[in-house]
């Protein structure tokens, strides 16, 4: 009787734990646990790696940039999350619903890389179709289709067949199709690729607008300045493995700080041996730039320059760009131990 009571208590505790984990999972927009995808060549039986043991969490309302070189597993991850690929092992959930369940995609808007469309439809017909597939009623899909065509700058093209759309127009239509049903999660695979500066600006503004209304955005990109502007956090994936997840600020503050001191003219100076390891001189046509590689020695460097009667024009801190950090991670110069992605909003 006693052991039966313990067993029942255990069952009860397990149920509570399960219920709590389901509730916690539902509070996250994206969660993956040891998600792995490998491809087996049917002829050579060689196993190619797509993504390996991916543990990633994206909180509600967060914008996460997913970075990595070509072939690193970015698109594979996004396809696993959107149900276009089946995982070899591991699990993934969108808002707590396993990705193998079509219901997980109810609140999802997805823009694939280089989207292709039915060229026998016109812009409005396509958006109506996309909206209805995501659960909108016929009339609502038409109204929202017109609204979104206007918002992405295609309002005067609603009856134009898609075969006559340019690449940039198709990309904007793809974004409209991803957003027509007001999704809570937006997954974008290289949304800026192939766009001119105006198109990139429009997409950037759309993403910022979605962030402001609380939509979770997960997007892969090669255009790092855009990632820097848009993202709360950045995940870097290399060779199918997640190498780093951090905020842009964390990534940048981790790097060594440099300071540039700009001086008028080209003074004849010899850097003293004590400062030589941290001070570098770059002569330019109308000025001289001294770069202090260790900001703790900045005061000392400035004092020496003033002592030499040099006319200082500007002292500017230089932060490493995301691009530099990304390249450093990719080349293994600065590759911290893999981090289990963490923040949950």
């Amino acid at each position, binding site marked *: 009787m006693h052991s039966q009571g313990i067993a029942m208590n255990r069952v009860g505790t397990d149920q509570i734990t399960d219920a709590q984990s389901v509730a916690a999972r539902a509070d996250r927009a994206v969660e993956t646990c040891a998600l792995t995808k490998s491809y087996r060549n049917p002829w050579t039986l060689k196993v190619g790696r797509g993504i390996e043991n991916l543990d990633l969490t994206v909180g509600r309302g967060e914008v996460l940039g997913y970075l990595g070189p070509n072939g690193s597993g970015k698109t594979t991850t996004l396809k696993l999350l959107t149900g276009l690929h089946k995982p070899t092992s591991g699990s993934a959930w969108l808002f707590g619903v396993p990705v193998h369940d079509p219901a997980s995609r109810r609140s999802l808007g997805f823009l694939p890389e280089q989207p292709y469309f039915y060229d026998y439809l016109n812009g409005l017909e396509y958006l109506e179709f996309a909206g209805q597939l995501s*659960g909108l009623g016929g009339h609502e899909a038409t109204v929202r289709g017109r609204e979104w065509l206007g918002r992405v700058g295609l309002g005067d093209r609603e009856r134009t067949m898609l075969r006559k759309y340019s690449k940039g127009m198709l990309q904007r239509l793809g974004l409209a199709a991803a957003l027509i049903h007001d999704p809570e999660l937006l997954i974008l695979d290289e949304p800026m690729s192939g766009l001119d500066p105006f198109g990139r600006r429009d997409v950037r503004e759309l993403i910022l607008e979605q962030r402001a209304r609380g939509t979770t955005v997960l997007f892969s990109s090669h255009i790092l300045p855009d990632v820097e502007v848009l993202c709360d956090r950045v995940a870097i994936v290399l060779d199918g493995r997640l190498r780093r997840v951090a905020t842009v600020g964390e990534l940048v503050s981790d790097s060594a700080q440099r300071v540039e001191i700009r001086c008028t003219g080209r003074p004849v100076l010899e850097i003293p041996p004590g400062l030589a390891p941290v001070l570098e001189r770059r002569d330019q046509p109308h000025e001289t730039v001294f770069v202090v590689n260790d900001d703790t020695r900045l005061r000392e460097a400035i004092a020496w320059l003033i002592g030499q009667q040099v006319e200082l024009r500007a002292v500017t801190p230089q932060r490493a760009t995301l691009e530099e950090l990304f390249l450093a991670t990719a080349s293994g110069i600065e590759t911290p131990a893999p981090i289990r992605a963490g923040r949950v909003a």
Partner: protein
Amino acid sequence: MIATLIARNTFREASRDRLMVGLMVAGITAMIVTQIASPLALGEGTRITVDLGLTVISVLGLLAVLMVGTSLVAKEIERRTIFNLLSRPIARPHYLIGKWAGLTASLWAVSGGLAIGLWGVLALRGAGDRAPAMFQAVYLAGLEISVVVAIAVLCSALSTPVLSSLYTLGFYLVGQASGDLRAFAGQFPEPLATIVRGAASVAPNLPLFNMRSLAAAGDTTSLVHLGIATGYAFLYVTCVLALASAAFESRDFK
């Protein structure tokens, strides 16, 4: 609901395809040519009109399946338009059912249009009384097309458009000869006999849907035959689409 949406879009795709319009024009032209040549038929003009008209409907249906149906799913995978569909809350079986239903409906519409044209020709020839038999034959041809479209969807979900066309044509030919193959199977040594019998059993029993000769003579078939053919087509299509869904479920889209 989702399957209906996909079916409606597939119907729209097929109806805007120039190939379908071309097939419709080819069918009407063939019927006109039949009328020009009918004086050579030595009093059998009406019989030949019905026979050739029904043959045109069946052959054009098969051509449409081979040219449109076999690339139905494969083309979407190749052109990656499927990404925009399956990343929405759509179960893969619903997608396949929608594709099958859409193309089947458009081919029924083409067959129906040609049947009305044939009926008009018969009325002009003063042979309007053959209409019931002719419409029964068109109904059975429609069932045959539904079965072949299901096979095309299965092949298309698993292979390239060219291979799908070859596989579907193979199934069609074996299906047309399924009765003969079963009869001949006994003549072959084992294990060939078992293989031939197996192929004849797996392929659809397409002669069940052929009553062209009967209709050409103005004879109708029994309601029992129509009922059995309908039930058989329904079961066969269900099994083939279930098989296609099972195979499609685990597929990755690159």
